[in-house]
């Protein structure tokens, strides 16, 4: 197991290089002149433009630009954005916000999704099952932007139960945006769990367990649920990676200064160093959580072994 994990982690290194180069090339390929756009209606002084192009290596061909980037990276320098702010500062300031939002969203989608899915799955076609079916269909079909505004208007402005925006009230500030962000995934988790549980309830080993006279609770939790969780864990694991990439809409509407907003702005301004720095980090998260999922498989199902 340890060797397997080490091998997988080693494999991430070439993946990260490949990914960062691809992202770098994509930003490079974006049309337009980012320095010209900095000035807006009135162009910057020509010598200032030249200086900025020099500082950000914009006159060099792609390969040279990338090598210079790697050279700086080797010295622990992630570069700066066009305002001269280090990318590392941007990440260290914004990542905690995104992590908190992700934690809240994942907890909501996992806990509520799995409970709803299990209850619906063991009583198929019951009233509760139909409620889950209808409500999840509804949630999945509403765009998150609409949901965010409705939630903000209703629970924030009209009822005053939650802060409308910002992070002033600590974890409590993340509850409403977390719910909005989790809503879509929550529906998927509930559906996945329901299908998986419903299927496993008819499996031979469940019948055996019941025949042994085990209490219903043990049959559902220890036998059915544990076996049903594999697809759910896959989904939630991948979702963590996605959510850490930032939720642009949710972060904007609830004014959370997270990573999603930073990357959106950086792409628009064509700030190569910022985009590459953040996206590469996201790629790493994604790979890491996929590894965690694979390891969890072995925990959930002892038949799966990694040698």
């Amino acid at each position: 197991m340890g060797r397997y994990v080490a091998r997988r982690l080693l494999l991430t290194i070439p993946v990260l290089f490949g990914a960062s180069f691809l992202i770098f090339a994509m930003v490079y390929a974006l049309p337009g002149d980012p320095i010209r756009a900095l000035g807006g209606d009135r162009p910057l002084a020509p010598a200032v433009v030249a200086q900025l192009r020099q500082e950000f290596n914009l006159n060099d061909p792609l390969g040279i630009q990338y090598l210079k980037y790697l050279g700086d990276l080797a010295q622990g320098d992630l570069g700066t954005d066009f305002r001269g702010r280090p990318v590392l500062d941007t990440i260290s300031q914004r990542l905690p916000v995104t992590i908190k939002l992700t934690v809240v969203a994942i907890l909501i989608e996992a806990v509520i999704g799995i409970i709803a899915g299990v209850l619906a799955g063991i009583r198929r076609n019951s009233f509760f099952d139909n409620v889950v079916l209808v409500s999840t269909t509804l949630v999945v079909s509403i765009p998150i932007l609409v949901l965010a505004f409705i939630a903000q208007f209703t629970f924030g402005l009209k009822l005053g139960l939650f802060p409308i925006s910002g992070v002033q009230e600590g974890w409590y500030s993340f509850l409403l945006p977390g719910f909005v962000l989790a809503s879509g995934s929550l529906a998927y988790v509930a559906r996945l769990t329901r299908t998986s549980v419903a299927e496993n309830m008819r499996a031979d080993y469940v019948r055996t367990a019941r025949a042994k006279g085990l209490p219903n609770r043990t049959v559902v939790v220890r036998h059915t649920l544990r076996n049903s969780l594999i697809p759910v864990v896959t989904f939630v694991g991948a979702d963590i990676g996605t959510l850490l990439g930032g939720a642009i809409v949710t972060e904007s509407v609830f004014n959370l200064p997270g990573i999603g907003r930073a990357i959106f702005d950086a792409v628009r301004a064509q700030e190569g160093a910022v985009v590459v720095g953040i996206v590469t980090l996201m790629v790493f998260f994604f790979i890491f959580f996929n590894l965690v999922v694979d390891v969890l498989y072995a925990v959930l199902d002892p038949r799966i072994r990694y040698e």
Partner: protein
Amino acid sequence: MNLSKRRGALVAAGIATALVLSACGGSDEGGSEGGGATGGTFSMYINEPENPLVPGNTTESEGSQVVKSLWTGLIQYGPEGEVEYSGVADSIESEDNITWTVKLKDGWTFHDGSPVTAQSFVDAWNYTAYSPNTQGASYFFANIEGYDALQAPTDDEGNVTGEPAATEMTGLVVEDDTTFTVTLTDPFAQFPVTVGYNAFFPLPESFFEDPEAAGTNPIGNGPFKADGEFVPGTGITLSKYEDYAGENAAQADGVEYKIFADLNTAYTEVQAGNLDITRDVPPDAITTAADEFGDRFLESPSSQFTYVGFPTYDPRYQDKRVRQAFSLAINREEITEAIFNGTRAPADSAIAPVVDGYREGACEYCEVDVERANELLDEAGFDRSQPVELWFNSGAGHDAWMEAVGNQLRENLGVEYQLRGDLDFSQYLPLADEKGFTGPFRLAWAMDYPSPQNYLEPLYSTAALPPAGSNTAFYSNPEFDELVDEGNRASSNDEAIDFYNQAEDVLLEDMPIIPMFFGLEQAVHSENVSGVFVDVFGQVDTSKVTVNN
């Protein structure tokens, strides 16, 4: 010579009276004593500033709002954009409009306690002009003697090939602690009007030790000082500077600038009473905001000027009669009502109404006259079978009104149109500089300082042809240049305005651009504050805001 202290003092006296009156009015409901500071703190929306909070690198509205709370320049602008000597300068005078002597008042200090001296200004200006410092407002000093020596040499491909020859402009000379002289390359009578802009703010000695740190922990000389560092995505908290030497000391104890990524969210926070001021109202809330906020909904003219430029390098648009005809065929009023819900005003000149020198109806061809338009177009022999391509940058809300312009051209002139709105700003601007447009194109301008010159020279003069300036219509008329120049040399403000107006007449006859709209600023504020006023720059003077108890 012009705009000297006396005139400024008169204006200032008027303002002071108005202030006392409004303070008395405010005390009825607020319970505060007239004249004295009311205390309390308030919060205000801004969008993310584009640059660190360094005045010489802040040329956009969001950073400027904060910078203007933190700094006071040589002069200040009154509510109507008039020059007031309520800043650091005691006088700014010149015999020949070339060499200007700036005398400072005593007693001004930076927030770190160090004095504001002539050196503070000269050092700051040199720093901003020096190209390796990559300050956005560098070009503001281009008319000061010795500016070129502070620009790094570049080769033909635009690569920097060395260091600038000098670090200080020869045109700036410190005479003593409170006096310095500025020598310009050309006479410019409007010079005192320009120095209220951010680019001309002073910097303390501590700034030069670590400019980067100063960008997040700004130290100015204004009515408010920074309480902590500026946090991108979150904002900055300011508190009243007790040792402020100016007349317009802060009324409130503090202001918290909160950054919102989405204007809608900020607006909702004001509705809920959690945020005190937004200088902007979301487009879909415009129609309901007036009812909802009553007298807490503010609307005032801004310096924003939207225009449609012609590619005068394109043979098709070289005849001025074609350009005049297009202008006559556009019904601006209809567009401002139908598309903008009255949040823009139809333009009737090339100089915005917020500037001294604006003349109502200066633009002869801005009235709708379909018959005359068609006559002119026929005379010019315009080929109506080819569609007119209309250019604008994407994702910035220009689609609807450009389409309306196209429809009016089709209806009134019988030409088809094609929208070319798929380029992002970063592609659009270089294309403008490279003479890449194949038809009329949208652009906008907001003034840096309240002078008609600012609406003429940077946009249409021969000297402002790209890449040096914003003359993307590639208009060049010696008569226009000469008149602007005479305005710059004029010995009095009235005389200057007269020349600028003549230049404007030449421009509006040649019509390299069609004036479209003037901006209107909307703002709303909570019941917690009063004295909120949006100035001609679209900014709230935070020193005048009072907090109701």
